[in-house]
């Protein structure tokens, strides 16, 4: 890697660090995968940044009967999904919920999530209180938010 590239990478890192210093808790990049067929469950993902330590404790949405905090883990080749009581948000450090890790499990969807749709999701934090974001629905099995989700 050349020095120029390294310097460029360093600039980007510094710029990102500067951007990642919100004055209050922020929830960005809210997205969910489209649910295939009549699947009753879906999963939503967000990126959370907070200047002070906080904890995501619950979620709710009009799109589903229930929204729970879940984690998916691989033990060897075995996939396990379990509810978690909360997700810790360390100060100044972005926490990204993503496929293969923690997610907001949407249980009993009122209707299937179709690509391109959006719906509101309220996240409740121990200190910052509730935050409502717009979740953009991506392709089923997508691994991250598309450009539309990133705008919110």
């Amino acid at each position, binding site marked *: 890697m050349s020095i120029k590239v390294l310097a460029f990478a360093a600039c980007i890192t510094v710029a990102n660090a500067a951007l990642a210093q919100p004055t209050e808790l922020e929830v960005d990049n809210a997205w969910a*995968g489209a649910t295939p*067929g009549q*699947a009753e469950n*879906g999963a939503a993902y967000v990126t959370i940044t907070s200047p002070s330590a906080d904890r995501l404790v619950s979620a709710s949405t009009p799109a589903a009967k229930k929204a729970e905090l879940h984690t998916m883990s*691989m033990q*060897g080749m*075995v996939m396990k*999904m379990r509810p978690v009581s909360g997700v810790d948000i360390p100060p100044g450090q972005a926490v990204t919920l993503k496929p293969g890790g923690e997610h907001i499990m949407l249980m009993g969807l009122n209707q299937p999530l179709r690509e391109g749709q959006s719906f509101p999701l309220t996240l409740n934090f121990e200190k910052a209180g509730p935050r409502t974001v717009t979740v953009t629905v991506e392709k089923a*099995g997508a691994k991250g938010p598309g450009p539309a989700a990133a705008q919110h």
Partner: protein
Amino acid sequence: MPRTPPTAQTRNSPPGGSRRFLLIAGVLAGLVILGTGAFLALALRDNPRGAAGTALASAIGGPFQLVDQNGKTVTDADLKGKWSLIYFGYTHCPDACPTALNDISIALSELGPKRDAVRPVFITVDPERDTPESLKAYVTSFDAPILALTGTAEQVAQAAKGYRVYYAKHPEAGGDYSMDHSSVIYVMDPEGRFTASFTHESAPEQISERLKKLIG
């Protein structure tokens, strides 16, 4: 897989029988590794023919009788003639299963004319909720034409046993449940022999590159 750890047995063995116990321990450990699939993917990564012609070719797979999304009976014999990409999962799974099926769809779209030589197969580990109808709606959401299979609890258990797939119901509050299950994509050749496997960490490009080499 819930097998007794062989080490405890080895430690408690009398001095005279220790070699025999070590051997048993070794075999048991080997079986555990076989069940993971990851080891297989790594061991066979650089072999252009995969597991074909090795003892592993017959270690994964076996006879099954299930029913597809159109209500038609499908057995292991029906899979012959094409390459199969077999994944066990369930439709209430919000994360790993759509990801695996989407990865397979992307990988197949990169195969060009070889695409028709490969048949993706989704076998449910949740026959209680996954009927042929719900499977049909589920798999049509993906770009690739996926053969989706379900059956009675016993039929699914037999198929999973052959592929060394572990699954178990995990009850949740409110009467709902999730399924713990092995998340492995198996590649079977047109003769129905186990050839290679992919894990949740395999990118679609890796899957398509590997398939191109295997199909030849």
